[in-house]
């Protein structure tokens, strides 16, 4: 098992290198000069040249990339073009906020998705099932930014229950958490339902019933664990969506996390900042997927056997 984990962690190196390369190139190809952003429209060509020289932007692009990636693997993500703060420091300072938001979104989605999916499968074709799947359909269809704005409109402006932006109050995380978690909740509920429906028709469920177990116990003990396997796959994919979704959600709610930091970085053509946020996202995504793969082994002994 440990051998497998280490193998997967080593495989991260080319992934990080590849992702940063793509983002690096796209950033440099996109219009807009960071020097102009930093010094303003009226800056003299000499000042601009000097600024570019100082930040190494006059080197050939591949050299620039090589310098950057060597720094990354030595733990140096550079400094921000805008205010010269260390990227590592900035990202690490923001990361707990993104983590908090993601956890809130995860709680919202998991706490709702499993019960909804399981109940609607067990009560297939009843009004409960219909209602649940209707909610899930809405949840999947709604764009994140729109849902965010609606929630702000209703719960902040009308009712005044939750703050509309920032992360200063204890309940600040509620609205962004719901906004971010809804899509995932809907997707997970639908997957859980279809997976459960398939499992409760399996022969081994009939065997479990024939042993004299109660319906509830059959579902809890025999069905859910088997139904979890395909749900885990979707879970991994949805966690990726959670990260990209956090970029939008954090912008809508002025949430001081990495997503918003990245958007600000893009707007200012702050290359090191964007790349630093990117690497953080890539690492999160990879670690999450590794955990999901390990969770398979925990749930399914057939997969466990393969990891030996």
């Amino acid at each position, binding site marked *: 098992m440990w051998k497998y984990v280490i193998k997967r962690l080593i495989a991260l190196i080319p992934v990080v290198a590849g992702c940063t390369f793509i983002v690096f190139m796209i950033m440099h190809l996109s219009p807009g000069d960071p020097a102009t952003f930093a010094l303003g429209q009226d800056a003299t060509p000499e000042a601009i040249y000097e600024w570019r020289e100082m930040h190494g932007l006059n080197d050939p692009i591949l050299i620039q990339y090589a310098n950057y990636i060597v720094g990354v693997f030595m733990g140096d993500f550079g400094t921000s073009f805008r205010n010269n703060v260390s990227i590592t420091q900035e990202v690490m300072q923001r990361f707990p906020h993104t983590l908090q938001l993601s956890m809130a979104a995860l709680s919202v989605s998991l706490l709702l998705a499993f019960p909804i999916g399981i109940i609607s499968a067990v009560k297939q074709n009843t009004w409960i099932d219909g209602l649940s799947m209707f909610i899930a359909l809405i949840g999947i269809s709604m764009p994140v930014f729109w849902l965010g704005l609606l929630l702000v409109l209703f719960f902040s402006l009308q009712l005044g229950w939750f703050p509309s932006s920032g992360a200063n109050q204890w309940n600040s995380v509620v609205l962004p958490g719901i906004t971010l978690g809804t899509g995932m909740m809907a997707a997970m509920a639908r997957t859980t339902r279809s997976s459960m429906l398939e499992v409760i028709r399996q*022969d081994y469920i009939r065997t479990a019933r024939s042993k004299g177990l*109660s319906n509830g116990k059959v579902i809890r003990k025999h069905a859910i664990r088997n139904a979890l396997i395909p749900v885990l796959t979707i879970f991994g994919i949805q966690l990726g969506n959670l990260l990209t979704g956090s970029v939008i959600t954090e912008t809508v709610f002025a949430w001081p996390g990495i997503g918003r930091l990245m958007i600000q970085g893009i707007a200012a053509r702050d290359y090191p900042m964007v790349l630093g946020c990117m690497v953080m996202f890539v690492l999160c995504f990879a670690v999450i997927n590794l955990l999901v793969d390990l969770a398979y082994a925990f749930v399914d002994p057939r997969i466990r056997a393969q990891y030996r």
Partner: protein
Amino acid sequence: MSNVSDNRRMALEIENLVVEYRTHEGTVHALNGLDLYIEKGKTLGLVGETGAGKTTAGLSVLRLVPDPPGVIVDGAIKLNGETIFDKTDKEMESIRGKAVSMIFQDPMTSLNPVFTVEDQIAEVIERHEQLTKEESYVKAREMLELVGIPGTRGGEYPHQFSGGMKQRVVIAIALACSPSVLIADEPTTALDVTIQAQVLEMMKGLREKYDTSMLMITHDLGIVAEICDSVSVIYAGRVIEHGDLEDVFDNTRHPYTEGLFNSLPNLQDRQSRLKPIQGLMPDPRDLPTGCPFHPRCDYAKDICSKERPPKTYRNERHYVECHLYNSENIVEGKVINR
């Protein structure tokens, strides 16, 4: 069976059972007045083609017919003299696995892949017997030994076992609480012939050891000859011929039963051609009127398509449902040329 009066000798009685599956495509008439009787300690073979309603009959006894779409429309089932349709769900749960248990057809899919085999055997023991967790695992391992699997393998998962061994595990689960009635739904169909013989031998031994009454659902007349005391031949959800093993095998009366025997290869005369029954099982959503077998029957008469034939008894136990017979000619037979 005419002498139903002596209830105490009956382990299982099914009377006039009607089960339908109501689907969007139409109503599937799975069982249409099925009668089955098993005496205590005896084994009844339920023989018929795929789709005749054999498995539905077995599931009905456990009240596990999937609902929806399955609906039990009519009939009664008595288990050791008690009517099971009167039981509450809770009471039914205490009966399943204890008073009656079922061996399912496909061992590959009948075990839960995420639990060890001893988990799955101990589960039924824990449910029905007053034992601690440790004691039920000890007993689970004993059950494994009983079906010929080393108890030390109890901690392994189903995917680590071969098909034959999985079927043994399924049998161990079914027998773990020594049920008085065991329903075996084609327990050997999914197995190699060599393993089949082993599993059958084992079941015979266990049946004697626990004095279990058994309903052996099968389409294999060889298995019936090997293990059963009496036979019910089922066609389109009705028993069309029933009797003791010798009655049905040596004094076959119904043309369908005859056809089943003719479909077996003759080992003495290897040149002889098989005489399969022509046609297919009728669509259970649209059964023929009268005798459901008449479209495939070589001896069909006018009346066969109009009226369902009554039971005609050859002796106290052996009867057929066929218009070819009446009380005069049934004893002599010779209506069909075997």
